[in-house]
């Protein structure tokens, strides 16, 4: 005799320890198995796109800090790239290199946090998080030294960066870059072969290649599914064409691949950093840009490979001091489309870790 069962709806979030912010999932469960899922977002909606229409181009930069607050330097970077594309500004060499250094350290720190909290979702009670946070904390110290803040940097400016590096920055950064591979090895020792982690993540919640492309997933989520698409290689913005690095690509697109791609990307970022620090030239750090920038009428879409995926800014100018339209292409909102596809048929526990493996940041999703 078949046992009659009834699915029930579980409201996960907005207050839930593993939703990485205020995210809500209406999950239909059959026992422990996820039958249906509906993401509900918007709890952190601050209307940044609307706010941007009333601010000057420079005043928007602090707003972009509040998008993906785990990696705000890359948000600044993407935004100023879009404005420079719109206004046709050429920036000094040294500023380019400083931007690369900041973007790549930001990528490492974001990936460390992503992997750490992914492990936290797996149930490894804070330990990987704290080990990874130690390295991230060292970076935050360096950011604080450069721009005075640890979270919302507001460092990039249209035409360069706001300040030159202090003299004690480079020795400290060199030491950090020299130490980092050893710490990544340690994380590998702690995690990559752990049988429980393998059992929990290998072959779990697969995102097939076709689906990944169709939902326009980007960043590690796309690359874990086997698509070699990294904007740093595919569309080298800034000066990424000068560096020698590889794009790690996963094979099946399961949770383990998403974890693995992030760790490998951190290694590649260390490689880029070594080159960038060695090549860093002297000179100006900011081009001469009028204080109230009035870009010519037109539109520009500037995009970079942010740690979480392709972060784009679409700006429309009407030759006034504020953008006519300021649109953000948040990578994780679009990656989130994949969540439902991945988790149907898996257990609640897999749902949590898959959500962690997408590495969302609600500040960016809700804007």
């Amino acid at each position, binding site marked *: 005799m078949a046992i009659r069962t009834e699915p029930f709806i579980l409201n996960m979030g907005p207050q839930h320890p593993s939703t990485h912010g205020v995210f809500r999932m209406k999950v239909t469960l059959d026992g422990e198995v996820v039958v249906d899922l509906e993401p509900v977002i918007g709890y952190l*909606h601050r209307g940044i796109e609307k706010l941007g229409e009333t601010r000057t181009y420079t005043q928007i930069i602090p707003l972009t800090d509040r998008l993906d607050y785990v990696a705000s330097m890359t948000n600044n970077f993407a935004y100023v790239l879009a404005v420079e594309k719109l206004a046709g500004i050429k920036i000094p060499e040294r500023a380019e290199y400083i931007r690369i250094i900041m973007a790549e350290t930001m990528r490492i720190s974001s990936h460390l946090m992503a992997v750490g909290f992914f492990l936290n979702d797996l149930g490894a009670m804070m330990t990987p998080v704290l080990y990874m946070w130690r390295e991230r904390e060292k970076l935050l110290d360096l950011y604080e030294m450069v721009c005075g803040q640890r979270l919302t940097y507001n460092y990039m400016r249209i035409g360069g960066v706001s300040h030159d590096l202090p003299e004690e920055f480079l020795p400290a950064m060199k030491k950090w870059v020299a130490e980092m591979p050893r710490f990544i090895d340690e994380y590998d020792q702690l995690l990559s072969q752990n049988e429980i982690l393998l059992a929990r993540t290998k072959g779990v919640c697969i995102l097939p290649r076709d689906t990944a*492309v169709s939902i*326009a997933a980007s960043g590690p989520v796309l690359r874990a599914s086997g698509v070699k698409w990294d904007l740093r290689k595919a569309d080298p913005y800034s000066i990424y064409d000068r560096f020698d690095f590889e794009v790690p690509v996963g094979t099946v697109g399961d949770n383990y691949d998403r974890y693995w791609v992030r760790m490998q990307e951190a290694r590649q970022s260390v490689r880029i950093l070594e080159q960038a620090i060695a090549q860093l030239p002297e000179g100006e750090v900011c081009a001469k840009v009028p204080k109230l920038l009035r870009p010519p009428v037109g539109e520009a879409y500037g995009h970079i490979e942010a740690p979480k995926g392709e972060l*784009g800014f679409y700006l*429309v100018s009407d030759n006034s001091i504020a953008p006519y*339209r300021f649109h953000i292409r948040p990578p994780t*909102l*679009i990656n989130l*489309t994949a969540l439902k596809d991945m988790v149907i048929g898996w257990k609640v526990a897999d749902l949590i870790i898959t959500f962690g493996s997408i590495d969302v940041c609600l500040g960016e999703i809700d804007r």
Partner: protein
Amino acid sequence: MTTALNGEQLAEKIIKASPDAVVAVDKGAVVVKSESLYQVAEFLKNTPELDFDYLVNLTVVDYMDYFEVVYHLVSLKHNHSLVLKTRCRDREKPVVPSVVGLWRSADFQEREVYDLMGIVFDGHPNLKRLLLWEGFVGHPLRRDYL
């Protein structure tokens, strides 16, 4: 390097496939009629030498007398990109065909546009407000919303 396809050359191809679809053309973008948007999008996606399989970005600009829906398309295989646009002049009930059937990434983005700009995407499977709550009056990203 992603090559941005020239809109004028591409427009000729589109006209061959579906005549009188193209409204305006410039160097970077092709503007098509909203009625024939779906056919054009299908053509762009399924033609092997174009193969736009990756819808990066979907957004709307409110130019007061018309809305301009902007699609940023990329082909992962050929590594080229295109900006496809369509316009719709009705402010009360602007309707644009949905492209969720072609690119599923349009799912959340169209919902967001519907939420903030009030553009109805015809054929979207689940067109609800995304960021704002149900029962919110108005569409705040329109230029005339105060």
